């Protein structure tokens, strides 16, 4: 029962990683850019959720605002930051992205203060126990939401014309254009979807911790990068599996290796181990 419980806790954490990392993969697949500032959008979503809930008293409204505003912010980052430097070497965009990420953290600090925010009325997220399992309501909600959203995204990319066009654009943008696919629209759509999913992750974390802080994106930013490398860079399926696997491994690792390595060190030990055995990620062919 302990194992099952750890496994579920790991899946919950992995769901957060998955919601964040999918956006990174979408961007990497299309533009070959490591979109570090993506983790800033995760924090933005969390901040919007808390401030709008506290201001209006309506959590659903706050979620809507977080998803919509963060999605649009992602599109704006593409248009204003990446599009002008697309023909430069990839490290230019990486540096720009890191710069934006730091600027976003400072902006949160300036706008909302350095100590973080909490919901005025703490959400009812007590732990539920059944049959020896214990999970918080927030964790259950998170897993359900992540499964619905990521499953929906999977159906979209695998089963619809738009999804097929998206995958074609990832492999060969000029050829996709020759068949009438507007690749700029594909990019905007990807930034919107990826950023909105990061906002959902931010909302979920804000519920679980009842705390949002300026630096809450730091750890997810590098962990999500590790995940997309594990997932084979640019593969949505690979990213999802890698995210969940990492969550589970961290959960078990903190129990068995906890006095040796902390959670984040375990994650990176796992990354190094996998890359030594499979240099192109868990599923990478090339």
């Amino acid at each position, binding site marked *: 029962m302990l194992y099952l419980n750890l496994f579920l806790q790991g899946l919950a954490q992995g769901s957060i990683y998955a919601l964040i990392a999918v956006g990174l993969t979408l961007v990497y697949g299309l533009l070959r850019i490591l979109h570090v500032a993506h983790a800033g959008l995760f924090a933005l979503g969390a901040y919007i959720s808390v401030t709008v809930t506290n201001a209006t008293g309506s959590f659903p409204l706050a979620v809507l605002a977080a998803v919509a505003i963060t999605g649009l912010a992602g599109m704006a980052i593409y248009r204003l930051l990446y599009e002008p430097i697309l023909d430069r070497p990839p490290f230019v965009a990486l540096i720009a992205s890191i710069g934006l990420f730091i600027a976003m953290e400072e902006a949160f600090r300036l706008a909302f203060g350095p100590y973080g925010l909490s919901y005025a009325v703490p959400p009812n997220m007590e732990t539920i126990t059944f049959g020896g399992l214990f999970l918080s309501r927030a964790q259950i909600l998170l897993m359900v939401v992540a499964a619905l959203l990521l499953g929906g995204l999977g159906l979209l990319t695998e089963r619809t*014309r738009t999804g*097929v*066009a998206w*995958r*074609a654009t990832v*492999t*060969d943008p*000029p*050829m*996709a*254009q*020759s*068949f*009438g*696919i*507007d*690749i700029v629209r594909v990019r905007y759509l990807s930034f919107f979807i990826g950023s909105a999913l990061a906002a959902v992750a931010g909302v979920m974390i804000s519920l679980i911790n009842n705390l949002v802080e300026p630096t809450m994106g730091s750890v997810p930013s590098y962990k999500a990068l590790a995940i997309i490398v594990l997932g084979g860079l640019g593969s949505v399926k690979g990213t999802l599996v890698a995210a969940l696997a990492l969550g589970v491994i961290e959960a078990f690792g903190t129990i068995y290796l906890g006095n040796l390595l902390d959670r984040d060190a375990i994650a990176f030990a796992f990354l190094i181990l996998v890359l030594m055995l499979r240099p192109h990620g868990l599923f990478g062919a090339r």
Partner: protein
Amino acid sequence: MLRLENLTCGYGQMRAVHGLDLEVPAGGVTALVGANGAGKTSTIMAVAGHVAIRSGRVLVDGQDLTRRPATARVGAGVAIVPEGRRLFPDLTVEENLIVGGYALPAARTPPNRERAFALFPRLAERRRQRAGSLSGGEQQMLAIGRALMTEPRFLMIDELSLGLMPKMVDLCYEALASLKTTGLTVLLVEQNTARVLAVADRICVLESGRAVWRGTAAEARADPRLIESYLGEREAPALP
């Protein structure tokens, strides 16, 4: 159908085609031939919107496409079977065809797909297979099928037979002959002289980015010097 007026195009500072004038009349096959590096692919990719045009004009049915983006060409009835085929390797055969029909209403996809399968029954057998796992000949068939999904009026094919087994070359040329009877206009790049002389109605010979000979296939056959100097290096022409 296609008219190139004084077309100059290239990569960065480099010019691959210099002031090319080319007229491809509607119906029939026009072949573009020439040695490696002559500029055949560059010409086709310029018409497709993938190589920067420095000067001159590209007209399709009188419509000026010179400055239009690559995405706009398919709407003008232009389709391409590019050099190296450039399928979407991780997509299945069927999904490649879906992308081919993306510019048209979704309802056009099933009938067009069935037509592509009728032309190349091997594709129908492999419809759920990844395009990247097909043999070279099957990939070429899929590249043609994908282009036909756009319901083109003008089809550009770059290196139809290159690297294919003889049996596959036959199948591809049978398909081309049958497409020709439907009134489709084709611009064909082909290194195999015998095939060119057999299928083409008109021939244009490129050398270093310039047209050095233009005429009908009959005129080409009657000109042994031309065949020797521009067309003959690879294979003796099979005269009818």
